[in-house]
C-alpha cells in the first residue's frame, strides 16, 4: 500500500456518508424531497436530541435491550450445549434432528401469538420469541461446528489419552467456536428482527413500539429516529462480536477442517 492510503481508507467512507446526508439535506431544503416522507437530516437530528432530552429514547432503548439480552441468553446457552451434543453424538443427532428440522423453518414471528397465549402478553412471551429465534440458529451452527472438526484433532487427543470430558473441553468446544460465533452473529440479527416485530404488535415501550406509535400518530421524524436506532444497535452488536471473535478465536482460518464427504 502506498503512503497516505490509510488516510484514504478512513476518509472515503466518511466522505460518502456525509455526501449522501448533505445531498439529502439540500434536496429537502430546495423542496425536491417531500418533507412528509423524507424529512431532512437536520430535523431528524433535532427530534433525536429532544427525545434524548426528555428521556424517551432511554426508556424505549433500555426496554428493548433487556428483552434482547434476556432472550439471547436464554436461547443461546442451551442452543450451544444441545448443538455440541448433537454434533458429537450420532445418537443424539438422530433423535433430535427431525424435531429441529421441523421447527427451524417456521418464522419465529408466526408462533408469537401462540406464545402470548402460553406466556401471557407480558415480558415472558416476547423474551420467549427471541430465545426461540436464537436457540435454533446457534444450535445448528454449533452442531455444524463439531461435525466440521478435522479427524486429526480427535486422533491426536485419543492418542494422548483424552477422556470424554477432556475431549469436550479441550477439543470439541474450542474447535467449534468459530462456527458458534457465526451462529451467535445470526442470532443477534434475528433478535433485532424479532424484538421489533413483537413490539409492533404487543408493547407499550421499546424501539418497535416507538416506531409503531410514530406511524400511528404520523410523527415521521420519530419514525426515522427509531429506524436509525435499530441500525445503530445492529452495528454495535456486530462490533462487539467482532472484538470477542478476535480475542477468542484469533487462529480462525488456520484450522484444518474435515474433508467434505
Amino acid at each position, binding site marked *: 500500500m502506498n503512503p497516505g492510503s490509510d488516510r484514504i481508507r478512513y476518509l472515503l467512507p466518511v466522505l460518502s456518508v456525509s455526501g449522501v446526508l448533505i445531498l439529502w439535506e439540500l434536496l429537502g431544503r430546495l423542496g425536491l424531497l417531500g418533507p412528509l416522507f423524507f424529512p431532512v437530516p437536520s430535523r431528524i437530528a433535532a427530534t433525536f436530541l429532544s427525545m434524548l432530552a426528555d428521556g424517551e429514547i432511554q426508556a424505549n432503548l433500555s426496554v428493548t435491550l433487556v428483552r434482547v439480552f434476556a432472550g439471547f441468553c436464554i436461547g443461546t446457552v442451551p442452543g450451544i450445549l444441545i448443538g455440541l451434543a448433537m454434533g458429537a453424538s450420532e445418537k443424539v443427532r438422530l433423535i433430535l434432528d427431525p424435531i429441529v428440522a421441523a421447527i427451524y423453518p417456521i418464522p419465529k414471528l408466526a408462533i408469537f401469538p401462540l406464545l402470548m397465549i402460553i406466556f401471557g402478553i407480558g415480558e415472558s412471551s416476547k423474551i420467549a420469541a427471541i430465545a426461540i429465534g436464537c436457540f435454533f440458529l446457534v444450535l445448528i451452527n454449533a452442531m455444524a461446528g463439531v461435525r466440521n472438526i478435522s479427524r486429526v484433532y480427535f*486422533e491426536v487427543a485419543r492418542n*494422548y489419552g483424552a*477422556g470424554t470430558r477432556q475431549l469436550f473441553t479441550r477439543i470439541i468446544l474450542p474447535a467449534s467456536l468459530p462456527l458458534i460465533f457465526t451462529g451467535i452473529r445470526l442470532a443477534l440479527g434475528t433478535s433485532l428482527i424479532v424484538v421489533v416485530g413483537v413490539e409492533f404488535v404487543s408493547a407499550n415501550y421499546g424501539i418497535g413500539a416507538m416506531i409503531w406509535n410514530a406511524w400511528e400518530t404520523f410523527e415521521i421524524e420519530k419514525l426515522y429516529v427509531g429506524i436509525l436506532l435499530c441500525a445503530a444497535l445492529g452495528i454495535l452488536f456486530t462490533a462487539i462480536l467482532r472484538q470477542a471473535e478476535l480475542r477468542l478465536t*484469533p487462529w480462525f482460518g488456520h484450522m484444518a477442517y474435515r474433508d467434505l464427504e
Partner: protein
Amino acid sequence: MMLECLHLSKTFGEGSHAACVLDDLSLTTGDGEFLCILGPSGCGKSTLLRIIAGLIEPTEGTVQYTGARTARPLNAMVFQEHGVFPWMNVIDNVAFGLEMQGVSRSERYSRSMDFLKKVGLAAHARRNPHELSVGMRQRIALARAFVSDPAILLMDEPFASLDAQTRIILQDELLKIWGDQKKTVIFVTHDIDEAILLGDRVLVMSSAPGRIRDVIPVEIDRPRDLQAESTPRFAEARMRIWNIIRSEVLQSMAGGLP
C-alpha cells in the same frame, strides 16, 4: 520396550466394496530401535501405524507391547500435519500429553519447556501455532510426542509437507533427540533417503494389499547426518531399496488399479 505385531490384516468396508489394506503383516521392533516403514502411497502404512497406535482395530491379528512398563503411555504419534491444535498456544500443545496424564501444570510446563529448548522454540512458548511456520509447528508435534515419554514413538510422515531445507534440519534434530532418549521409533515415510538416513532397518511395503516386501538393515554408523548420504553404503542401500520399489510400482501399474 519392544513391539510385536502378529498377522495383522485390515479390511475396510464389506461385501463388494471391501478393500483389503493390510494382509497378514507381522513385524517386531528391537528395544530402542529406529524402524522405518517405506512404501508407495496407498500401501496401508498409515493404517498400520494407526492400528499400532490403537486408533483403529485390526480385522485380524494382534499388537503386543513387551517389556516392563509402568503408568507411562504406550505410544505417542506424530501426525503428518494439522496435528497441532490451533486453539492452544505452543507450550499447551507440547504439554497436552502430560495434561491428559494428569501431570500438574507447573511440572508439565517445566518439562515441556525443556523440550521446547531442545527444538529451539523456547522463545515462542506463549505464541499461537498459526503465527509460526509449518516447520516450527512440526517441531511442536515432535516435542509433544517426546515429552509425554511414551514407550514407542509413532511417526506418520511427519516431514512430508516441509520444504527440503527444513526437512533436513528437522531430521537432524529428530536424530539428536532420539540419540539422547533411546526410544523405540516407528517412522512411516515414502522418501527412500529419509528412511535410510534415519532407520536402523527399513521395512519396504508392497501396495494393495499392504504386505512386507523386504526388510533392509542399514549398516551406517551413528551418529548420522547429511554426510552419511554421500557414503557408498548409503548409495548401495538406496539402489537396493529403489529396485524393490520400482518392481512394486511397475507391477501395480501393469496390473492396473485394483
